[in-house]
């Protein structure tokens, strides 16, 4: 990076000098500076932030195009969606369980084979901020979850205000946080509106619990205490706003089993169930009585969108998902500034925000500190391995809905609305004593670490195209994802070449001397006539190593 910056500076100076020297003679057309050259290591670092795992092929593209142009191209690519696939599935037998597997299948097909890798990574990040999950009532709503994921995918580079409106009116969210079927008060029966969505929308999806500075740090009052963003009266105000909505196209406001299309059609307003009173929102704004449910909803979402917290809150959340657990306040501030104004006066442009996050100097710091980067999410570790090793199943399908058992994660499979892990999680020991967080380590428990290490072992040693596959091996089915390391096996007699190849595919050539030494010592002791075992050992020791788990 030092070199890159230095080169860039030289180019800039050179252009200035050239322009100066040309003054007075014929006008010089100054070409735009060429994109700064990207090393393979940088390309890997960038792609681990911007995709479901770097591959050498994609790294080559980044190196030849430059990061900015690659991002711009990614944002123009057609989207990999889930519903087009879900619609093709046979309707009988109508099994929700099977359809959830199909939903997971299309997630992994897109993740492994889609070319819109940046969009998918951002959609996944959004799915960890605006959480819905098949763990709970939505287990019976696979179409709803697939369509919800598509909403996140479509809006990944869209506008946050549009996204939050689609999220709010989506039946998946309606079911998950019980806005669906929420009705106006019935004081005679001590019934008041459901507060679930009102609370989590503000706490988790938009502004958070305390007033923030632009840089994401908490504002403090005169007593040095954080300032709450809202109180119970505001929760109740929003709870009243979110009354009157249920499935589209049903004949009963309290319908329990909606037709399939209602699972993916925005919720519909029944005005007789909407509260017509005034509602107190953020900043003391009071919505007048007598508005329609749609007017109330529009105004309430505007009220949230106008809150100064949205920029730093969402920016910091996305930085943590994509780049680093502990961004500097300046980094958050730079991204939040783009959130608040994309340069064309538009607030909430998520495409601009994503680009600001990924092209910030702190995303690829010239001098790496020991707190830069993050723990790679467990699901992203296995995805990176699969992508690097051309993973595919016999049947071409990947309905693996059980990965969360091994990794604590799966697509729309969080245990609750607080996601798989909390953005504030600070493990005991060094993190805590230094005031740092490592959200992903909340699910790196002793238990899940051994499970995920064992999964890697099975994947690499047994679930491969390259191992002998006895016909009675019941572990391998048409749906088992198998990886391919024939290339490594062919050079397994040459230990250094073998390690170089795996280093190149999984670490972008950044393997430490220690790791190389350990692997080399071990593989050198192995019989040379066991190429599969040799190749598997190298890959296994790399993907379970702390340096692979670390997203630099």
């Amino acid at each position, binding site marked *: 990076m030092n070199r890159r910056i230095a080169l860039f500076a030289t180019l800039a100076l050179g252009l200035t000098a050239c322009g100066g020297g040309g003054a007075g003679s014929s006008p010089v057309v100054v070409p735009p500076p060429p994109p700064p050259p990207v090393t393979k290591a940088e390309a890997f670092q960038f792609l681990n932030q911007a995709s479901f795992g770097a591959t050498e092929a994609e790294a080559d593209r980044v190196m030849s195009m430059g990061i900015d142009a690659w991002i711009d191209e990614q944002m123009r690519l057609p989207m990999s969606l889930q519903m087009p696939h879900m619609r093709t599935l046979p309707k009988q037998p109508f099994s929700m369980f099977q359809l959830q597997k199909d939903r997971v299948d299309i997630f992994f097909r897109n993740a492994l084979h889609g070319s819109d890798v940046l969009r998918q990574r951002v959609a996944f990040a959004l799915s960890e901020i605006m959480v819905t999950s098949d763990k709970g*009532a939505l287990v019976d709503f696979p179409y709803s979850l697939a369509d919800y994921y598509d909403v996140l995918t479509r809006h990944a580079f869209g506008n946050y205000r549009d996204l939050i409106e689609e999220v709010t009116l989506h039946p998946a969210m309606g079911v998950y946080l*019980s806005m669906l079927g*929420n009705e106006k008060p*019935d004081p005679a029966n*001590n*019934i*008041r*509106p*459901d*507060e*679930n969505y009102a*609370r989590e929308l503000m706490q988790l999806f938009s502004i958070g*619990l305390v007033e923030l500075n632009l840089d994401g740090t908490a504002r403090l009052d005169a007593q040095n205490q*954080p300032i*709450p963003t809202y109180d*119970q009266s505001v*929760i109740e105000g929003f709870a009243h706003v979110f009354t009157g909505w249920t499935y589209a196209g049903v004949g009963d406001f309290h319908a329990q089993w909606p037709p399939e299309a209602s699972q993916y059609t925005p919720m519909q307003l029944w005005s007789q169930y909407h509260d017509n009173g005034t509602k107190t929102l953020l900043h003391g704004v009071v919505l007048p009585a007598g508005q329609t449910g749609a007017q109330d909803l529009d105004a309430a979402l505007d009220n949230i969108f106008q809150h100064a917290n949205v920029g730093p809150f969402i920016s910091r959340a996305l930085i943590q998902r994509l780049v680093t*657990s502990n961004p500097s306040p300046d980094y958050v501030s730079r991204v939040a500034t783009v959130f608040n104004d994309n340069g064309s006066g538009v607030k909430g442009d998520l495409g601009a925000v994503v680009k600001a996050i990924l092209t910030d100097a702190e995303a690829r710091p010239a001098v790496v500190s*020991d*707190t*830069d*980067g993050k*723990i790679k999410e467990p699901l992203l570790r296995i995805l990176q391995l699969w992508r690097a090793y051309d993973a595919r199943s016999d049947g071409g399908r990947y309905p693996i809905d059980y990965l969360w058992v091994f990794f604590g994660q799966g697509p729309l499979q969080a*245990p*609750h609305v*607080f996601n798989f892990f909390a953005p504030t999680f600070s493990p*005991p*020991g*060094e*993190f805590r004593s230094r005031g*740092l967080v*490592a959200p992903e*380590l*909340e699910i*790196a*428990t*002793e*238990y899940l*670490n*051994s*499970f995920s*290490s*064992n999964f890697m*072992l099975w994947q690499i*040693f047994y679930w491969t195209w390259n191992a002998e596959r006895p016909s009675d091996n019941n572990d391998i089915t048409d749906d088992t994802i198998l990886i391919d390391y024939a290339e490594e096996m062919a050079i397994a007699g040459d230990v250094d070449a073998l390690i170089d190849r795996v280093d190149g595919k999984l670490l972008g050539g950044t393997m430490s001397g*220690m*790791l190389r030494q*350990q*692997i080399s010592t*071990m593989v050198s*002791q*192995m019989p040379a006539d066991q190429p599969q*075992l040799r190749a598997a*050992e190298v890959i296994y020791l790399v993907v*379970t190593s*702390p*340096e692979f*788990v*670390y*997203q630099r």
Partner: protein
Amino acid sequence: MKTIDRRQFLRQSVAAAAIAATPGAAYTQMAGGSGAFDDYRALVCVFLHGGNDSFNMLVPRSTAEYNAYATSRQNLAIPRDDLLPINPLSQPGTPGNEPFGLHPTMGGLQALFQSGQVAFVSNVGPLIEPTSLDQYRNKSVLLPPQLFSHNDQQDQWASLKGRSTSKTGWAGRMADLIRAEVPNQQMAINASLHGSNLFQSAEQTFPYVMGAGGPQEFQWLGWWLQDQQIRHRAAFEAIVDARYDSIYERGFAEIQRRAIDAAATVTAAMATPEAQAVTTPFPRTELGTQLNTVARIIAARNYLQMQRQVFFVGMGGFDTHDDQETVQPRLLMDINDALAAFHAATVEVGVASSVTTFTQSDFGRTLTSNGDGTDHAWAGNQLVLGGAVNGRDIYGSYPVLEIGSAEDVGGGRMIPSTSADQFAATLAKWFGVADSDLEIVAPSLTNFAQRDLGFMIA
């Protein structure tokens, strides 16, 4: 001297701005004696994620109190005749007119209450100081931040941190306090079968997280590759134990190391004859499976040289915003069946008086409904189970379940009349924490007159 330093350190780490400094009595022996305990004690925390609607778990049956309850709860009220009657020692009522009842699914706990192994602590919740409705409204007392928010109130129960920025849990602080007294234990003082949690998080001791069925061991290739297995494992461990530049690499490597070591130890413990001998049947539920594992690890306590341990188990689904009438009976039945089995197992193992089980939950729920469910509230009822419990009684004061009463901050959200700190301190004292160290465990205890709620046999 080490002990003094440790305690002073702990005090600083939980010092809340709002809380008066703990009086200086520096060194105190553990209740267990000079440097070591002479017995075995375990606490089992059953965390009910989402906020248990515990005013439907323990319900008044007396006419006036039941009528207030029924009026408030409307369609969510349990019919009086369906409640399983209990008669607490301190207010026994008369046959047919028992003053309280349990949810109809909780027959096992009804029997254990009547036989003296179960107590309830009523209207308990996070508080920093005693709080009245006026004080709540005038903000003239310090309140726990972010009332009614799931994760924040879970954190309050787990940490008792009040308004401080403490990052440790009260079981974690207990472990830090006693760790020097139990140097031979082969397993961490704190063990979780339900994921990472703040409750057991500490400054100096690490909790061990296993699965509902116990540890998952690392697999080191197949038996048919014996030579390679040894090389493979050696390389793997050498990589785990290497020095790393990034804090993230170091953090991950440390967990791997603990995982390798603890899984082997605990797996061996669960394979001992003592552990294998436990025959009490458990329900095959999330909670039942976890408590079955806890019972087997407790049975192997001598193998592991354990004297003090805290288990964390839990189940989710209590956030009953929707469809509560259908969902709640199953949830409470799961608690009942799993806890009754667990108690029976502790009797079988001969440790009923050495094991105390208690519930914690985010918060109670609104007495009012949102149509078919309830929303987040504050105080609730918690359950304590075990042979060392002064059972068959209700501790704290059961509130009048009336909307708009002097204990309702709105919508039927009850202000706690007993603090979670008092609840925790009573358990900590039984566990062996010296009275003068109780503020380390429960920092706000100093603001409450009653340091011991009395539900544990001294």
